């Protein structure tokens, strides 16, 4: 493992606040939400893991007690709300396994009358994986139109236009969502969220 201070880009003499600040900035930059549907999502997930490990190592080194910080990072998975046997569930599985062509074939076979908001959302993902961003945006917008209260669809659409925070173009309305976190991580994320809202 690389030097954790090098990973976070801080000096070993940096204060706890400086370490925390560097960690937060990097966590925002590589957060899995920003890379949903992106062909490089797996690289972003690796970076996120490295950052979390570096932060954990530093905090453990500095405090005598255990402290497990960091976003859990949902990776490139698709949670969704479809049931196990449905074709859309299968499409989500295929997308998680990066089998985009097969996912597109299954989606194309679904008749127009059965195409719900989730169909448009998943088709948007297929297009985003192919880097056809215009088509992806059309499908995501249609999914949001059909199901305006779905946070997953809305976040994905918003994140399409979000730049890396390193460039100062962070226009996304990101939702730091932690699925399956332990209590400690959940509390830390809540704390981060509160700090962001100040």
């Amino acid at each position, binding site marked *: 493992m690389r030097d954790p201070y090098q990973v976070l880009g801080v000096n070993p003499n940096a204060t706890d606040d400086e370490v925390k600040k560097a960690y937060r900035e990097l966590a925002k930059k590589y957060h899995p939400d920003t890379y949903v549907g992106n062909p490089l999502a797996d690289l972003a997930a690796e970076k996120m893991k490295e950052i979390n490990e570096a932060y954990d190592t530093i905090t453990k080194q500095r405090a005598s007690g255990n402290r497990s910080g960091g976003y859990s990072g949902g990776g490139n998975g698709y949670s969704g709300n479809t049931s196990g046997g449905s074709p859309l569930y299968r499409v989500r599985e295929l997308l998680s396994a990066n089998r985009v062509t097969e996912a597109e074939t299954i989606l194309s076979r679904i008749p127009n009358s059965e195409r719900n908001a989730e169909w448009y959302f998943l088709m948007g993902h297929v297009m985003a994986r192919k880097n056809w*961003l215009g088509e992806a945006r059309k499908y995501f917008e249609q999914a949001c139109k059909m199901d305006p209260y779905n946070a997953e669809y809305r976040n994905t659409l918003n994140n399409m236009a979000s730049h890396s925070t390193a460039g100062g173009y962070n226009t996304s309305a990101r939702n730091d969502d932690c699925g399956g976190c332990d209590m400690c991580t959940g509390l830390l994320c809540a704390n981060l969220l509160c700090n962001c809202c100040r």
Partner: protein
Amino acid sequence: MFGYIRPDMGELKTKHVGLYRSVYCGICRCSGKHISRFSRFLLNYDFVFLAVVRLALTGEKYVIKPRRCMVNFKKRGVMEPNEALKFTSAAFGALAYFKALDDLQDEKGFKRFSTRIFLPFFRRMAKKGEKMYPGISDTVKIPLEKLSALEAANCAVPDEAADSFAVLTADIASFGLEGDVSRVAKDMGYHIGRFVYLADALDDRYKDQKTQSYNPLNLAFGGAEGVDQNISFLRRTLLDSGAAISRSYALADGNSFDGIIYNIAGYGIEAAAEKVINKENSK
């Protein structure tokens, strides 16, 4: 390529302005020395960005020396020829030749005549490029042939038409690279090509309508007026490519070119998009 991708100089730090200019002058000198003096008159900003991306991703060491040239009598910092500059010059040579061949088939009148006159120069540029980087000609030729076929078939899905050109720039950007860096370069190259192709189609919407030339946006939206009615969607999808470049580069950043690349992916792309969008006023 058409010179759409350039930084917003006003937003660039002074040190980055100097670095960017050194790449700009460096690629001009390098292509003059290694490809053809003729190529120096044709180079554009898109290739400077490609060179910057290659320099950033490969982490290649570079040397900048003060030099004069025929248009700048005052000495200014120029990047000495290196792998990234040589490769970009070679790729430009190949693209210029195959684009000229394509123009010979598609264009009429003076443009076709002038292309025919200069074709031997283009051929020489491509030959030199191929000699320096074997395989570069095929990298350019195959996607351009696919693009010509799509254009001949009047493809009305802009993303599908843009895909062929984007694959070309993706393959150029990632040529000879391996591993994660290659994937990042490919993704960045893809969105550079996608943006350039769609921005060019948007830029030419009235001209193409007048001359009844192929334009994927005119076909998709029912003419140049239809394109204007959907301009907010097109603005968003162009800026999405800038955002995608920025996100991809974030996975490999951390060098002296960060400021330039993030500036271009953000302000530069936005300014280029606005320029082609506002062309409706001067139809």
